[in-house]
């Protein structure tokens, strides 16, 4: 007759097996799969049957499921990468066309490659993070945050190169706040809302404290830019706050 010790041992081994599922599947259904296995073990124990045959069948059956889910996951990842690659190519058309039309826009081939990699990387980050929640506000929050972060990083890179003012590197601290905050929040909506509000506040403080050194005709445009980026980060924070209050469960807990 199966004992509680045997059930615990099989459950531990089964939990190790479940780690082989793709992460998205494991986060969504892992607890349910483990719970169902536990229920089956209890059923066999209560009816006085041995666990070995059950465990053998379930471990084999689950292994087949793991192979199937990993295969599906890989093909989905491939499709996502293809979509992002094509999307990045479409967006790249903007600077390519602009370089032909706008006077003084003389990028070298390497610059287009770098920009394409940045577009692709940003798109993949969106594709990976946005899957964390089904809520539209979470996905919109990720999109707005990435667009604002990309824009801020890009404009600052250009501005630093043009002005040769190393003090402008302080703007990168906004992105650093975002990176650290997202990591600490583990991409949960509530923590991301705080992170985006912190980014908006950091940018506002830098904009007020840091002398731009720009001539007056540029200072007005910079002020407008600051307001736009602060508004974008705040909007993103509000979207994440909406997602956290709307009651949408993170996909990791929807097994």
């Amino acid at each position, binding site marked *: 007759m199966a004992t509680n010790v045997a059930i615990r041992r099989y459950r531990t081994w089964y939990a190790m097996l479940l780690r082989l599922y793709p992460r998205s*599947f494991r986060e*969504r*259904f892992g*607890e*349910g*799969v483990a*719970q*169902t*296995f536990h*229920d*089956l073990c209890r059923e066999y124990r209560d009816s006085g049957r041995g666990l070995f045959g059950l465990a053998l*069948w*379930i471990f084999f*059956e*689950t*292994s*087949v*499921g*793991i192979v*199937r*889910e990993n295969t599906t996951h890989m093909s989905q990842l491939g499709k996502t990468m293809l979509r992002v690659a094509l999307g990045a190519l479409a967006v790249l058309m903007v600077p390519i066309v602009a370089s032909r039309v706008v006077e003084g826009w003389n990028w070298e081939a390497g610059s287009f490659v770098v920009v394409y990699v940045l577009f692709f990387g940003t798109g993949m980050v969106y594709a990976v993070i946005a899957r964390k929640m089904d809520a539209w506000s979470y996905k919109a929050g990720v999109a707005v945050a990435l667009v604002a972060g990309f824009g801020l990083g890009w404009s600052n890179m250009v501005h630093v190169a043009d002005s040769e003012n190393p003090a402008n590197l302080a703007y990168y601290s906004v992105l650093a706040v975002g990176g650290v905050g997202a990591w600490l929040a583990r991409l949960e909506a509530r923590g991301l809302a705080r992170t985006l509000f912190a980014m908006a506040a950091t940018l506002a403080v830098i904009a007020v404290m840091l002398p731009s050194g720009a001539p007056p005709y540029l200072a007005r445009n910079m002020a407008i830019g600051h307001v736009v980026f602060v508004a974008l980060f705040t909007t993103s924070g509000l979207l994440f706050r909406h997602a956290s209050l709307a009651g949408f469960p993170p996909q990791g807990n*929807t*097994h």
Partner: protein
Amino acid sequence: MAKKNAAQAPLTPAVLHILLALSTGERHGYGIMKQVQADSQGKAKMGPGTLYGSMGRMMEAGLIQESDKRVDPEMDDERRIYYELTDAGRAALEAELKRYRGVVAVAEGRLAHGH
């Protein structure tokens, strides 16, 4: 598109059994498994790998969804997730049963005429 097709395409045996199991009410994973066993008189045996893999695809297709029910008094585990049929799931089940009835009618007609 996937949701529309799901109600028309022939269903896999696992999906059909899960839809049947949920047609009488909300159930959690183990409950679905036991209902499938009962419905098939023990002929269909479904493990957690097949069950949750199929359920994941069915949720993607909009055939089933999580229900608000959380606590099973007998099992005493409030983390247990219950699932229920959606309207699309019920429509898919009805379409599949209609298809089965058509196949059975053709088969019975042929057998009656000795073909």
